[in-house]
């Protein structure tokens, strides 16, 4: 809630403003286009909590809410540590926000949300949405989503996004008031429709193909990785059995007993170490998943381009046919088949007055058509320009992020190997004392 404890909030540069004034200040600064919100404000999804309540059909349901905390950036640097603003949101509200952004900015690659249901799980990992590990990973994913949006040059200045972060009550109504739902429906229809574009922009066609390939390869990677994780779990855990049998065996030995017993402890430690290893690997899987879903967002942009291109082509075709009709009418030569033309042939020529009226109507239509084509053309060009800028930005982000992900994966593997070497060296020492 923006009002609670707002006296404690340090506003950039000026601490004498009243709460409402400071709020306006922040809001106005936010609206400035091209500003990265994160330069002004710290955002985090700090906690997750279980709630129970009645749902739309008046049934009891349990759901999780996430605490979004925001704090002006300068507050920390000034030494004071004010209580951050915070509010609770559930996953469905995040979904609503994203849908709004998708519809409002169809030319942008909108950051994805973490998965709704756990997929690509290996057997020990729970597929239950209520599982604390899943909730924790989701919390991280939601924070990541907010940070991505807040650092996007265009999305960060969106008002609805800002109020998502700062206005607990009434936000939903505000979103619906924008009327984006209507656009959402037509967008969905468009995305699912099949149509053929005559002159698609090559770059977008390639991007769409890339999106398809990326999605396919990451899915495969996640699937195999999950299976491998399962197996690795088995390998480590079976070693725990050595711990037990060494312990039992040491009981019937004299000199060998101590060495065996302590070696057994190391085998137990080895078996236990796999839980942390695989927990860390889940972070890597989450990073891959983000780009799996990003691929979808990328494809949506390419699809949207196809749609705008298609509509332009339709308008152009329509204009051409109208122009042709006018020409035929003017010269009397019939080149295109039309029912009207046929009937006039069958039932006799029109009167000059009739022809005049028709011509006039066509002229109007042609003028309208020209406007339409101009409009659609501009739309197309505008779309291509904006979308391509964002796609380039996305490409760079993707290359950077995935490279980082691979580096941290390699580091994880190195850490795992070092731990393995240490445990087995410890065990070896015990064995050598047998």
């Amino acid at each position, binding site marked *: 809630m923006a009002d609670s404890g707002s006296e404690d909030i340090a506003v950039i540069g000026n601490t004498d403003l009243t709460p409402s004034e400071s709020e306006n200040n922040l809001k106005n600064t936010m609206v400035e286009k091209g500003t990265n919100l994160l330069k002004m404000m710290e955002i985090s999804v700090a906690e997750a909590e279980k709630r129970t309540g009645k749902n739309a059909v008046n049934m009891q349901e349990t759901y999780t809410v996430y605490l979004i905390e925001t704090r002006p950036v300068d507050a920390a640097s000034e030494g004071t540590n004010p209580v951050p603003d915070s509010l609770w949101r559930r996953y469905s509200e995040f979904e609503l926000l994203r849908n709004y952004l998708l519809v409002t900015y169809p030319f942008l690659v909108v950051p994805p949300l973490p998965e709704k249901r756990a997929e690509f799980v290996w057997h020990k990992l729970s597929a239950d949405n209520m599982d604390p590990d899943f909730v924790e990973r989701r919390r991280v994913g939601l924070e990541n989503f907010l940070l991505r949006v807040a650092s996007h040059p265009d999305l960060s200045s969106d008002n609805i996004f800002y109020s998502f972060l700062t206005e607990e009550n009434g936000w939903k109504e505000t979103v619906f008031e924008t009327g984006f739902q209507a656009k959402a429906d037509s967008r969905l229809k468009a995305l699912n429709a099949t149509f053929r574009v005559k002159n698609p922009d090559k770059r977008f066609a390639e991007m769409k193909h*890339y999106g398809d*390939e*990326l999605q396919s*390869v*990451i899915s*495969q*990677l996640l699937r*195999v*990785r999950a*299976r*491998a994780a399962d*197996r*690795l779990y*088995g*390998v480590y855990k*079976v*070693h725990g*059995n*050595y711990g037990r*049998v060494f312990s*039992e*065996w040491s009981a*019937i030995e004299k*000199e*060998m007993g101590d*060495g065996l017993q302590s*070696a057994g402890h190391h085998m137990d430690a080895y078996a236990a170490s796999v839980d942390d290893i695989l927990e860390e690997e889940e972070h890597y899987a989450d990073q891959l998943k983000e780009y799996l879903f990003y691929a979808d967002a990328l494809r949506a942009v390419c699809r949207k381009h196809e749609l705008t291109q298609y509509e332009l082509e339709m308008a152009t075709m329509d204009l051409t046919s109208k122009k042709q009709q006018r020409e035929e009418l003017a010269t009397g030569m019939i080149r295109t088949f039309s029912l009207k033309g046929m009937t006039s042939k069958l039932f006799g020529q029109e009167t000059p007055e009739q022809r005049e009226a028709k011509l006039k109507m066509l002229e109007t239509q042609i003028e309208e058509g020209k406007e339409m084509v101009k409009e659609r053309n501009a739309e197309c060009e505008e779309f291509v320009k904006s979308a391509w800028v964002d796609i380039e930005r996305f490409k760079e982000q993707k*290359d950077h992020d*995935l*490279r980082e992900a*691979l*580096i941290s*994966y*390699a*580091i994880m*593997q*190195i850490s795992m*190997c*070092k731990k*393995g*070497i240490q445990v*087995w*060296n410890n*065990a*070896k020492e015990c*064995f*050598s*004392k*047998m």
Partner: protein
Amino acid sequence: MSAGAPRSLASSGQKSIQDMCHPLSAQESALSPGRAADKDLILPNGTPVDTSSPASSSSLLNRLHLDDDLDGETRDLFVTVDDPKKHVSTMETYITYRVCTKTSRTEFDLPEYSVRRRYQDFDWLRNKLEESQPTHLIPPLPEKFVMKGVVDRFSEEFVETRRKALDKFLKRVADHPVLSFNEHFNAFLSAKDLNKRQGLALLTKMGESVKFVTGGYKPRARPAEFAAMGDYLDLFTPKLGTIDRIAQRIIKEQSEFLMELREYGPVYSSWSSFEEDLHDPLEGVSGCVSNCSSALEELTEDMSEDFLPVLREYVLYIESMKNVLKKRDQVQAEYETKLEAVVFREDKKTPVPTDVEKCQDRVECFNADLKADWDRWENNKRQDFRQLLTGMADKNIQYYEKCLAAWESLIPLLQDKQEAEGETS
């Protein structure tokens, strides 16, 4: 019935007692942990040994089979089994192994021998040893029968595993202060052609004094120390079984993990094929996973070839030991039965018949031999398992070291482009 003072034992071979190491001297202080400090180790047959890694040092130890009651200097008999070769004839196909001997013992005509023997010959030797030295623990041979169709008797892995086991068998015999002087052993090592009927003649010469009649006498209470041996063996056997099962399970899980890795790596490769900037990093990861896969394959193969067979050998060893214990029980039973019969029949003044005296001798000899062999066995067992488990640890360490090297070498490759990008931007 306690073991009497050691005398000139009929089963000790032709050496006089002064020249031999006393069997009871087998209980020496433990050998210091097997770590070959000398880097320039050479096998008795002259080939140098690679000691570049700790794991190969312990395998060296395996081959030399240093014994704790005979240090390097007093050893005068060295035996190795190597160079397996396949022989194909119209009748059958089989493998022979070269058996090399180097010795300064006068029981041998020459200081060096090199003969070829097949598994059958080892089996013959073992049977002969069991017959002629029934009071001693004879080391086990690798399993005789292998299911055709399940195991390839001529695969490199199988032959190598068998060779190692046969080598160990001969070394254990060679290290034994009594068995190593056995006539059949001598013939096995030195005869050009092993005429297996020759053994029969030798046996009848020595036979009388050593052939025991084991015929259904009512078993008596075992003396405490032999009862303890039996109890230990009964407790130890299931532990071995459990360890065997665990090892097999681990190998299985590792193999299945390996299968997934072999699918996992190539996915990075196919991903790299449609990336530009990310092409090299992704290829690098693919290569890394591939290296780890190879390392894992080596680990599972090594465990299959080196670890499991040794466990199984000990199971066989224990089986034959239990049999020797039973034989001892029978000898004791025979003696006590005859003694009781004599005591009941006559009055205490008449001397004990020689028949009963002979039985007493037999019991005392058996007990002494067995006790000595048991102590030696315990020491060997300790060394063998120390080596086995240390070897297992080594193999795992090597596996992780290989993987570590692969991933560490990848990091600069992954970070490289970033530095280059930093320079150009």
